[in-house]
């Protein structure tokens, strides 16, 4: 009862909307509200790799290139670079080198940062200890130079940093591997390692605005890496600043406080609750794109063409681990944009007759908009090539049997149904390793996998189960029994266990195998154990996913490259697929410019892949993004994460709608209170009686 009173007292003090999770003072401001699920582990550009981190790092760091926000297919355009660098091929003692000269635009300034003031580089310990935020110190800035880019590339080999792309880049950038060895020797514990003193062969400064990267051989995909924060500039002053003794204990590190030239700066870092990006006052300003995809103009996405970005003053990201509160807060208007959890899907989206998703009437009435995009990602059911039953290493007859078995399964496993049950159709079944929207992908009848599907009435239809049964019989397992021994065929599926929802998934898988009368055993383990099994090659069937680094077919096809075998070389080829013909084609395809020639090779690779079926089908997930009506310029984009600068918020409209949607419902509380009060009545009556009785017994 007391708590109820408290509740009433406090709540009435909060204004007319009671469930607003944000401070009253922020209402009506030009702020974007969004979420993050996982606390970012690394914000240091040399280490940050996940998309959770990209939400923050991409707004702060500016690598030389970026993806066009509106155009599809995805297109690289310059960000800080003056133009897209074109490699020169140089021949030296029989080895080909590609040389990239990257010229950056002049006049770009860094965000305000204490590292740019010389005094801040030798701070007293006491001062550091008393600091609340590095931005409490006097702040300075300076112009971006080519040296900063060189410095950052050197950092990829830094002995105290773990750059996920070091291994890959060491293959290409001349001298990078040896450089790491040299740094290892030069490093002194507790001391700042000045990378400027250690030259790196393959990366050099040409002049204040130009730097040069030399790669071994050809690597046309390299330009895509230049659009990632790994290649963003890092001022040595910032590195020096954070390396002062005592900084680490205060969490003052580059991993926590990024510094860049981008439109925003991270002004508050509380990864348990809230991250705040603030407009960078030194940002040079960038024009909103004036061209887009067909239809973008009608959708109002070109209204701001040519205007100076960014538009939003501040972006507040709240941590939301559970999907239910996230969805509810989005509906209440407290988040400006949202994905859709599978369970809320029906509420938000209807799928029309043509299979196109539109918003449900309730959502439309609220002015919410929907945008979908297919992620450059693939999830697949892999078959371990090393497995004696289903793999392909054993030669001759048994390899043929195993292939037939895989083909039979590829028909039987109904990914369309999987997507409709577990993802509400948010995905497309894959017919080839390459995801839609990437060069090499073929759409429609052309892109059909003739083994599993047939083209009927203008769409792909899974072939009947009889075809699979036929293949199974040819494989030597008529009706799911080994023709020789009569033993039933048992297949094992390894997956990572994600929790209680898994039971349904397992039941579904059992049904798929039951169609062929094949016995099925799930083996669910935790993530570590699952990875270990993959590394050892001791799985039979397994489900894994891959999300592309850049929009190029090489980044998908290499998942099937024999040299990438997980069990043999700890590469990314989890199914350990090995086909010399495929590998030879891959080697030819990887360094080719995209064109008809390349397409032809990819088609051939795809044919081999389909026949061998090392992956028994899979799907490319489709992302559904919802935007509130007050959010402008929002467009789903799978490649560029530096979206914040394009967005626009109509704060007044948001305020009005939030108020309309969140009127508190009071009567149940009042009723509850009254009921509690009522329950006191019998107590009081009883009390009176007791008191009298006690008095009487005594007298």
């Amino acid at each position, binding site marked *: 009862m007391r708590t109820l009173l408290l509740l009433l007292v406090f709540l009435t003090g909060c204004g007319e909307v009671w469930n607003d999770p944000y401070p009253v003072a922020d209402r009506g401001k030009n702020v974007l509200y969004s979420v993050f699920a996982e606390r970012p582990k690394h914000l240091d550009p040399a280490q940050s790799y996940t998309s959770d981190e990209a939400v923050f790092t991409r707004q702060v760091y500016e690598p030389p290139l970026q993806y066009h926000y509106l155009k599809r297919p995805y297109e690289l355009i310059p960000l800080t670079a003056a133009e897209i660098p074109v490699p020169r091929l140089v021949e030296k003692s029989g080895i080909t080198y590609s040389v990239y000269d990257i010229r950056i635009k002049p006049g770009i300034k860094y965000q305000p940062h204490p590292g740019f003031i010389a005094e801040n580089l030798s701070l007293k310990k006491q001062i550091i200890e008393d600091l609340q935020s590095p931005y409490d110190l006097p702040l300075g800035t300076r112009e971006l130079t080519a040296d900063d880019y060189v410095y950052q590339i050197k950092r990829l080999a830094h002995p105290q940093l773990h750059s996920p792309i070091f291994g890959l880049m060491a293959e290409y950038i001349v001298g990078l591997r040896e450089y790491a060895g040299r740094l290892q020797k030069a490093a002194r514990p507790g001391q700042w390692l000045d990378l400027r003193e250690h030259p790196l062969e393959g990366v050099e400064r040409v002049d204040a605005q130009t730097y040069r990267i030399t790669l071994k051989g050809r690597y046309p995909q390299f330009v895509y890496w230049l659009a990632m924060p790994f290649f963003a500039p890092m001022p040595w002053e910032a590195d020096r600043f954070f390396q002062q003794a005592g900084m680490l204990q205060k969490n003052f590190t580059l991993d926590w406080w990024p510094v860049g030239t981008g439109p925003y700066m991270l002004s508050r870092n509380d990864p348990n609750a809230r991250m705040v990006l603030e407009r960078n006052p030194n940002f040079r300003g960038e024009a909103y794109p004036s061209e887009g995809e067909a239809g973008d103009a009608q959708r109002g996405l070109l209204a701001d063409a040519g205007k100076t970005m960014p538009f939003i003053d501040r972006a507040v990201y709240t941590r939301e681990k559970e999907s239910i509160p996230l969805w509810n807060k989005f509906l209440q208007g407290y988040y400006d944009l949202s994905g859709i959890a599978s369970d809320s899907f029906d509420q938000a989206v209807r799928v029309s007759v043509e299979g196109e998703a539109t918003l449900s009437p309730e959502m439309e009435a609220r002015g919410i908009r929907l945008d979908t995009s297919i992620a450059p990602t693939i999830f697949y059911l892999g078959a371990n090539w090393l497995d004696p039953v289903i793999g392909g290493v054993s030669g001759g007859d048994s390899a043929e049997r195993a292939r037939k078995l895989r083909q039979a399964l590829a028909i039987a496993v109904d990914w369309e149904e999987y997507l409709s049950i577990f993802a509400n159709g948010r995905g497309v079944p894959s017919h080839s390793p390459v995801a839609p929207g990437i060069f090499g992908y073929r759409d429609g009848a052309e892109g059909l996998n003739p083994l599993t599907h047939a083209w009927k009435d203008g769409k792909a239809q899974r072939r009947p189960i009889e075809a699979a049964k036929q293949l199974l019989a040819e494989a030597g397992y008529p009706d799911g029994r080994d023709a020789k021994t*009569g033993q039933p065929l048992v297949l094992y599926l390894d997956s990572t266990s994600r929790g209680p929802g898994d039971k349904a998934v397992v039941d579904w898988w059992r049904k798929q195998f039951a169609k062929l009368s094949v016995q099925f055993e799930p083996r669910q383990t935790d993530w570590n154990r699952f990875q270990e099994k993959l590394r050892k090659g001791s799985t039979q069937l397994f489900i894994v996913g891959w999300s592309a680094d850049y929009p190029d077919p090489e980044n998908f096809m290499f998942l099937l490259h024999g040299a990438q075998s997980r069990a043999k070389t700890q590469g990314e080829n989890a199914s350990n697929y090995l086909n010399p013909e495929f590998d030879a084609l891959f080697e030819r395809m990887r360094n080719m410019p995209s064109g008809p020639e390349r397409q032809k090779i990819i088609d051939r690779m795809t044919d081999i892949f389909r026949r061998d079926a090392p992956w028994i089908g899979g799907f490319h997930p489709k992302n559904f993004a919802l935007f509130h009506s007050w959010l402008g310029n929002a467009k789903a984009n799978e490649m560029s994460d530096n979206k914040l600068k394009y967005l626009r918020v109509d704060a007044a409209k948001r305020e009005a709608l939030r108020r309309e949607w969140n009127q508190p419902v009071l009567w149940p509380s009042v009723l509850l209170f009254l009921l509690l009060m009522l329950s006191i009545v019998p107590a009081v009556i009883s009390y009176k009686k007791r008191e009298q009785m006690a008095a009487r017994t005594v007298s």
Partner: protein
Amino acid sequence: MPVILVTDVLVWLLAAAATGYAFYCRRHPHLAVPWARVFRSTAAMASVVVLGVYVALGLLDSLHFRPELEKKDGEQKAYSSEVLSVLDLALSHLRGRSEKTYSAPLATRSFAKEQIELPDGRQLRDFPRLRFGGAHLQDEGEWAGDVAKRMLTGIAVAAALLFLIFLVMKIIRKRRPEIPWSAAYAAIAVLALLAGPAAALSSGYHVLGTDKVGQDIFYLALKSVRTSLVIGTLTTLVLLPVGIALGIAAGYFKGWIDDVIQYLYTTLNSIPGVLLIAAAVLMMQVYIDLHPEMFQTAVQRADLRLLFLCIILGLTSWTGLARLLRGEALKLSQLEYIQAAHAFGVRDTRILARHILPNVSHIVIIAMVMDFSGLVLAEAVLSYVGVGVDPSTNSFGTMINAARMEMAREPVVWWALATAFTFMFALVLAANLFADAVRDGFDPRVRM
């Protein structure tokens, strides 16, 4: 082919032991008297009926086998990799009939709209008819009549049954007039009146709706009962020997033994419980994962995890009982007759077996029944945190966890959560009431 799960064996052993104990009690008045006191309580009688139904379900669900696969001539006998129980057989009409996805209780149409192809080739987006729920109805207009008819049938059968039980009851009542048979009868009546219509309806509908992949919620709830019972009983079985042995040893021998045991339980107690359980469960999962050859089927694997969970819960919660028994043994060992036995040179083991153990047995009994409900509730929470039973095991915890997500839907999918709530509430409430009666019957002063 019968499949013998470890927990099955233990459950049946426990059932046998309980029966044996009951006969033992009848012949020993010092035990028969408190039990008689227990059964004189109306709440206890009613809850015994409810618990009895749950136990029967659990026992039926503890007889497992693998159905034989169909075979052609000349083929060997082979068995499915799916493990079923006798309960599954009895409920096969519920188990087999799964829909595509959610459907409300007694619904005839799916909960979610779907693309339907009309006979003329046109497509329409509507709520499709269910594959099984109400599929026998030609016209959905007959729904209300059909449901009412089935309910009445159910009630009629239940009423007939109740009348028979009433006659039997009358005879028993004369023999044992002190026991509140009417309470038991009331409980039976309520259960029968619920079960009758439910059974009658379940042959044609999904009485409590279906879940995300279209499984019958009623079936899931019935299957979850076994897990709760196993956790509630086997855990105590694990905890008892450890708790009794260490507790009594500490209190009786004192000295360094006492020090070591106290050290042991203070150390265990001081580690936050969930952490300890989480770590132990993960550890055991790794063990299971590394030895896949030990298990022929997923059910056996899940069963081992369940057993381990019981053991872990038992090993982390013996400390409370041990401390209680230590105090009691400390008190008892000061008593004159035990001191005298010492003086006469009676061996320690004999003193412990003849004098100490029987004198603390009431505490053990009370601890056992009091712990039950707590463990059932704990299972749900642990499964939520992800360190509970195997995700493929039916349990209230996994049900709640899956249902939690459904609360965000609109219109809300309430039936799964409501079912889990009702089934669990009835079980825990009955267990609590029974435990209270047992405590009052044996020793109202014991605080737990």
